[in-house]
């Protein structure tokens, strides 16, 4: 199936074209942005990212690990230090907290990889239609469509003030 690439300058136009393409029923749409533009991501994917879930799970896991580990270890072999109780919560809060952050952070990284689909593609092989200019200051919108729709897509993209539109695969 042919693959068209439209090149844009303004994020607004990208959002516009995405919406239009969707309305016309083109699903295989992908965008390449040089910088983070939430409006574009949201236009492309409606539902909020599930990274938040990973973070939450990680954080809670850390918290419980922190407290359970400290309390269990202090009581596994009870040695009196400074006449303090074996299960003394205040000092263990520190450990609990630190592990919350640690696990939370690592899970967030994992979330990024999972939901960001990283690593992406084959090693060293860029997507068809991707080009270095999309890591400069231009935006790319790629659409995969049936041969007969090429013209329409082309027109649609141009209509949304794409600087240029090219067909990278027949």
């Amino acid at each position, binding site marked *: 199936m*042919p693959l068209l*690439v439209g*090149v844009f300058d303004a*994020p607004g136009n990208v959002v516009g074209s995405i919406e239009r393409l969707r309305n016309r029923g083109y699903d295989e749409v*992908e*965008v*390449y*942005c040089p*910088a*983070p*533009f939430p409006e*574009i*991501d*949201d236009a*492309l*994917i409606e539902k909020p*990212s599930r990274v938040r879930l990973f*973070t939450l799970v990680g954080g809670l896991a850390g918290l419980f690990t922190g407290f359970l*580990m400290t309390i269990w*270890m*202090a009581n596994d*072999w009870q040695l009196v*230090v400074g006449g303090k109780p074996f299960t003394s919560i205040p*000092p263990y809060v*520190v*450990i609990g907290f*630190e*592990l919350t*952050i*640690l696990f*939370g*952070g*690592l899970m*967030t*990284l994992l*979330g*990024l990889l999972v939901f960001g*689909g990283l690593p*992406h*593609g*084959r*090693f060293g092989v860029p997507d068809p*239609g*991707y*080009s*270095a*200019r*999309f*890591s400069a*200051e231009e935006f790319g919108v790629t659409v995969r469509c049936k041969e007969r729709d*090429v*013209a329409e897509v*082309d*027109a649609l993209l141009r*209509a949304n*003030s794409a600087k240029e*539109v*090219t*067909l*990278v695969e027949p």
Partner: protein
Amino acid sequence: MTPPPPAVSVADMIRPVPTPPDSQANQDILAVMGRPTLPYWLLLGFLVAFVHAAGAVWVYQVYEGLGIAGYSHPIFWGVYIVTFVFWVGIAHAGTLISAILYLFRSKWRNAINRSAEAMTVFAVLTAAQFLGIHVGRIWKSYFILPYPNQRGLWVNFKSPLVWDTFAITTYATISIVFFYVGLLPDLAIARDRSTGWRKLLYTALALGWHGTGRQWKAWNRSVLHLSGLATPLVLSVHSVVSWDFAMSIVPGWHATIFAPYFVAGAIFSGFAMVLTVMIPVRRIFGLEAYITNYHFENMARFILLTSLIVGYSYSIEYFIAWYSGVEPEQTSFWYRAFGPYWISTWIMIICNAVVPQVFWFPKARTHIPTIFVVSTLVNVGMWFERYVIIISGLSREYDPAVWGLYTPHAAELTILAGSFCFFAMFFVAFIKIFPVIAIAEVKELVIHERAHGQGGAH
């Protein structure tokens, strides 16, 4: 809006996407990573050499014993711990700028957050070593980790030193993650514009980043969460470090104010270090377009604020010592100011609480040389702050019969100098390998402005 041109045959449309000249931001910032000059190699060479020299001293110390350092009953902690706390402090600016300012959506951070985060990572690595350099039996130091062992022994979670281990480890890990996540898009940029081993390196590190929608979506979310986690972390880490002292009963250490006091001090020294490093970097690599006086002025404001907090803490310490009516406390503080360590004490007070006051004047805040001098002095002052707290505290304790004095010896000073070289070594290498400025985030601004046609790179 121009009408669509007439449809042409598909066949005509088949051609590769042409690449126009690269964007200004990419060119400018990637230029920094360009071919290293001779002076660069000389500098790097010197740093590497000195780090090895310091390393040799450390090996000798492990072989001979800590006796070669200046320790003297009852001063059991010396320059090593001082330097450890100093570097942990330095490590705070990065996360603060990246995380807290990110949450506050203060866009001016974009110009400096990359290098600040890098500093954080390097500073933490530097600091962490000193825990090992300081202990008497490095070859047994793994005892401090709660790993299952046949002895059936665990560690003492009531000990601030164990808290410290956890805090530092966490902080190091999270800082590295934060640094890397922020770096991803820029790695892709570098990948698209490099050849040879660099191409390979960046391709590997970039994980095939294309800046696709879902990548950016996950990325935005992750950065937000990481900032959310790192913000309390950055506040906690130096609190924990401060508890290494506050949890003891040593006069001059045992104070509730320590946590906020240390955190403020950390941010204070952190910002100072960022300035001390970035001013020359900006100058050498001509990044004035990206790191502007406006950034520096904001940081100067921060330094002024934290300097006030630190100064306040100094005075409160003395007030409480007097007000508590506890004689050992009072004596300790008296000796701190007028005893054998008075020089260090006054260096600390003047550098940290007095000098930064010049930033009340906008002229000073915008005059780069002034900022540079002040920030350097602050770094000196903050090292001495830790020196004063630790050494003078220990030298005047409860039993006057065993009051003592401590003076650092050559070994410690060499390793101290070595730590600065270690930090610098990493940073100098970093400049040539990774973009010193977060390009993607800079572009975010550039594109916005272009879209809404505003002027001024703020």
